């Protein structure tokens, strides 16, 4: 696999920012009630991530090390403001629902994490691809979570009725838990479980071993 392909595709399953690095899950909880805002959010994050990686990488040889994080954050924040302004100018309706989360991309750990961990050491093209790859990895999980939540919570996909809700005269009783943010915790957890059963190398070493039960050792002792 060429280096560029690896950089682009690795973050999708092997090194997924949400599932393996557990970064940036706040927005994954908040915006995923419906598919359409989720897609816009993914687009917003991916473009910020690509461009911030690109710009950080371009000026990486001139960034003074003692203020490098401030420089990165300034770049990221500027890009986020741009994306927010553009969203407001072209899709006001959606910007009303996800606007606050778009602004919070600044604090999304993935963006700053990739700038610091990758773009500071690599060239612009590879950094751009790294941003794109991580953006896609993030989007993949958000889209899966949003599809499940919208379908079972509101019975719709992209706002089109699939399962007709009882309050609209249909047969499906909407799962109200799915429309609450905490349900994405469980969905993301299940996804991580599935992913790690498939890619066993992602399972982390346990940080400590549970001590053996004292009672059991005593009993075992008396039995001898």
């Amino acid at each position, binding site marked *: 696999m060429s280096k560029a392909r690896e950089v682009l595709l690795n973050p999708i399953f092997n090194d997924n920012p949400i599932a393996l690095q557990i970064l940036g899950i706040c927005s994954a909880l908040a915006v995923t*009630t*419906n598919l359409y805002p989720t897609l816009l959010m993914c687009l917003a994050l991916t473009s910020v991530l690509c461009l911030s990686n690109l710009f950080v990488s371009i*000026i990486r*040889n*001139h*960034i*003074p*090390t*003692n*203020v490098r994080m*401030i*420089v990165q954050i*300034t*770049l990221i*924040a*500027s890009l986020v*403001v*741009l994306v927010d*302004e*553009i969203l*407001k*100018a*072209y899709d*006001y*309706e959606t910007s*009303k629902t996800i606007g606050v989360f778009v602004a919070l991309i600044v604090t999304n750990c993935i963006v700053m994490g990739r700038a610091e961990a990758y773009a500071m050491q690599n060239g612009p093209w590879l950094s751009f691809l790294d941003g794109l790859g991580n953006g896609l990895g993030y989007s993949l999980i958000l889209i899966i979570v949003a599809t499940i939540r919208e379908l079972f*919570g*509101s019975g719709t996909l992209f706002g089109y009725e699939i399962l007709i809700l009882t*309050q*609209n*005269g249909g047969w499906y009783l*909407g799962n*109200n838990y*799915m*429309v*609450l943010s905490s349900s994405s915790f469980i969905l993301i957890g299940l996804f991580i479980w599935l992913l790690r059963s498939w890619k066993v190398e992602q399972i982390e070493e346990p940080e400590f071993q549970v001590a053996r039960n004292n009672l059991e050792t005593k009993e075992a002792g008396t039995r001898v």
Partner: protein
Amino acid sequence: MNKNDTLLKTLFVGITLCLVCSIIISLTAVGLRDQQKLLKQKDQQSKILSSAGLLTNQKNIEELFMAIEERVINLDTGEYADSLDPKSFDGKNFESEDYSKDPLTSVQLSSDTDISSLKRRENFIKIYFYKENNNIKAVILPVRGLGLWGTLYGYLAIEPDLNTIIGLEYFSHKETPGLGAEVDNPRWKSKWRGKKIRSSSGEFKIEVIKGLVNLESPERKYQVDGLSGATITSRGVSNMLTFWLGELGYAKFLNKLKVEIENEEALNV
């Protein structure tokens, strides 16, 4: 020491970066401002039209909105405030202070009258008429009030008898999706059509009840089904209507308007 870490270079990089970023942001913000304003206005207009049941897919919003007449009224006296130009009136006074917060243009509400948790109420507000051949067909009044998580903002459209509701449409709220946010559900919204605000003796009646409206009950024309799982939002909607259609809200204006409409009808006959 790394050549990048000198004081001069640090300052240079910092200042250049800030300048470049701020210039790009300002240019984008200024460049997109008109477009943003247009979309925001369109959104509001579409909600105003839709509250009065005028929104159809065939015509575009601007064209439909031509039939809407905007007027600013004084809530204290119930008179038109024609000194304020409705086209430029946007709820802000010339110092761009919110009318509803400025002590000069708003009144403090006491805790027993402030059932919708507004704290203050503005004296001037913009309302809308839908007219056909100079006859009022609908009166559209902005309403707002506390739900569960925050204030709901919307428009209430009533028929020229000033007692029959055409529709209630919210353009901004923070209610729970699937529960309180069902105020946006077209099925629920359609339940408002034809409901009466007051009984024939003038008693204030309209309310969102808990559960479903009993279709046999004589009270049914004053009652709207509650939103299941959203008791507080439902109560918020009731309170908001009670406040805005009451003495501190539009009651004075509506009484004057009623006389005006009756006089006009008498002239036409």
